[in-house]
């Protein structure tokens, strides 16, 4: 019930932040209306990072505590994170088209980093699907999630340097929008969108976690059932053996 209330709150918050971002905040002088994509784009990128951080921490937690609930949290983080990453890439491409004239701009470090993030965690999810034993899956996935997470800052730095160690900032560079000179109204709109998206994030995380727990309980019931079946057939066989002369 509480989760459902959170879901409705998230829906309302996103609606409000969308109305605000589209109609109330004024358009950017340089980029016009295209700049409005920034609000959901940046917010989802941040939440993607948060999700992957959660996945890494929950993975470490699992390795220490051997508690499969932590693995369920790690799974939820990775799936929700991949969703937000894909959304961020889509937003980035939609933004890039009017501003740079192309969908894919190799010089944008945020876009290229995010593409690698998507590859890293899509691999993580695929890896999970190919391992059956729950504890083995949890431990190995924790290692994958941890190495992926510590790779993120290295990827980020390398891509930023790659763009050119001695190149001045490009005009209209998305990463410059949030500097202190950005109009406070824009910052406020972004914060509003971020808050709304965070509610959505929380709702999705909880729901995915609950689903993972249910899936796991079903699996566990199946396992116990198979052991009971083995015991039943053992007892049946022993009785038949004794009954025979």
């Amino acid at each position, binding site marked *: 019930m509480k989760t459902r209330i959170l879901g409705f709150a998230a829906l309302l918050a996103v609606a409000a932040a969308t109305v605000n971002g589209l109609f109330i905040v004024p358009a950017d002088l340089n980029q016009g209306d295209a700049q409005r994509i920034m609000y959901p784009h940046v917010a989802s990128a941040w939440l993607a990072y948060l999700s992957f951080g959660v996945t890494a921490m929950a993975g470490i937690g699992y390795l220490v505590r051997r508690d499969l609930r932590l693995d369920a949290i790690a799974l939820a983080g990775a799936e929700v994170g991949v969703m937000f990453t894909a959304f961020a890439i889509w937003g980035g491409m939609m933004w890039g088209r009017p501003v740079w004239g192309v969908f894919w701009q190799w010089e944008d470090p945020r876009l290229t980093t995010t593409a690698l993030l998507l590859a890293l965690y899509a691999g993580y999810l695929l890896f999970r699907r190919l391992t059956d034993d729950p504890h083995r899956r949890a431990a190995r996935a924790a290692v994958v999630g941890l190495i992926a997470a510590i790779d993120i800052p290295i990827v980020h730095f390398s891509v930023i340097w790659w763009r050119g160690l001695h190149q001045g900032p490009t005009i209209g560079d998305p990463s410059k929008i949030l500097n202190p000179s950005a109009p406070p109204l824009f910052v406020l709109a972004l914060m509003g969108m971020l808050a709304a998206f965070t509610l959505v994030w929380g709702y999705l995380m909880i729901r995915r976690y609950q689903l993972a*727990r249910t899936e*796991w*309980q079903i699996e566990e019931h199946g*396992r116990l059932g198979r*052991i009971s*079946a083995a015991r039943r057939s053992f007892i049946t066989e*022993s009785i038949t053996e*004794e009954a025979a002369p």
Partner: protein
Amino acid sequence: MPQTTIYVAPRLGGAHGSPPPAVDTDGLARLFGRSAALAGVSLRIEAGRTVALLGPNGAGKTTLLRILATAIRPSFGGLFIDGVDALRHPEIIRTRVAYLSHASGMYDDLTAAENLRFAATMLGWSGSEVATVADRAIAEVGLAPVADDRVGTFSAGMRKRLALARLLVARPSLVLLDEPHAALDEDGMGLVDRLLGLWHEFGITVVVASHQADRVNRAADATVRLHGGLVADVTGNGVRAGALAPVIPTQAAAVRTSR
């Protein structure tokens, strides 16, 4: 039929200050995919006993030995070796257990001597002792003439002898043997019998799975017969089977999801 003696297992030390059992398992079960290889094995083996593990193919002998060796973890159940929780501290167990599996665990591109010296290094012998210990073990199993041949050229029986030599390099308190007689010639089987006698004499606990019931029974204090992943019966001294404990779901499944 499984015996129905119920015991409360004291984990450290026996009831009257006697040493803890060498092996103490509590409802060990293991699933591979959809099939249950073990369905709840509770056994208690006194230290220094030689125990024959019998049963048809698929009875769970290899699975049980692999769990005892800490090569795999049980899906359910507990395992204590010399009073140490083997699931929590496998690294302690590994200093005490020597395990002969179906596979030789040797590298084809190395010679027999190189393989065994590598094993000796891994088992904690220091620089100067490694060669001596390894060469002596190789001579013991009758492989001295082919010590400098690559293992890739060895027959199954020679590989088995080499794997036996690795057991001699280790200094275990518990020896686990999976079909030690398989693939060996008459002379090799005699070697296994001699080793079984030696370990028994030195008070080392041995669990040996075999289809050669008469051969291992000669050396064994007790016999455990497995069937369908459960203990069918136990005969002899030093081994007791526990009751079939209910399978307890692991902690995470027991917690209810809130809606």
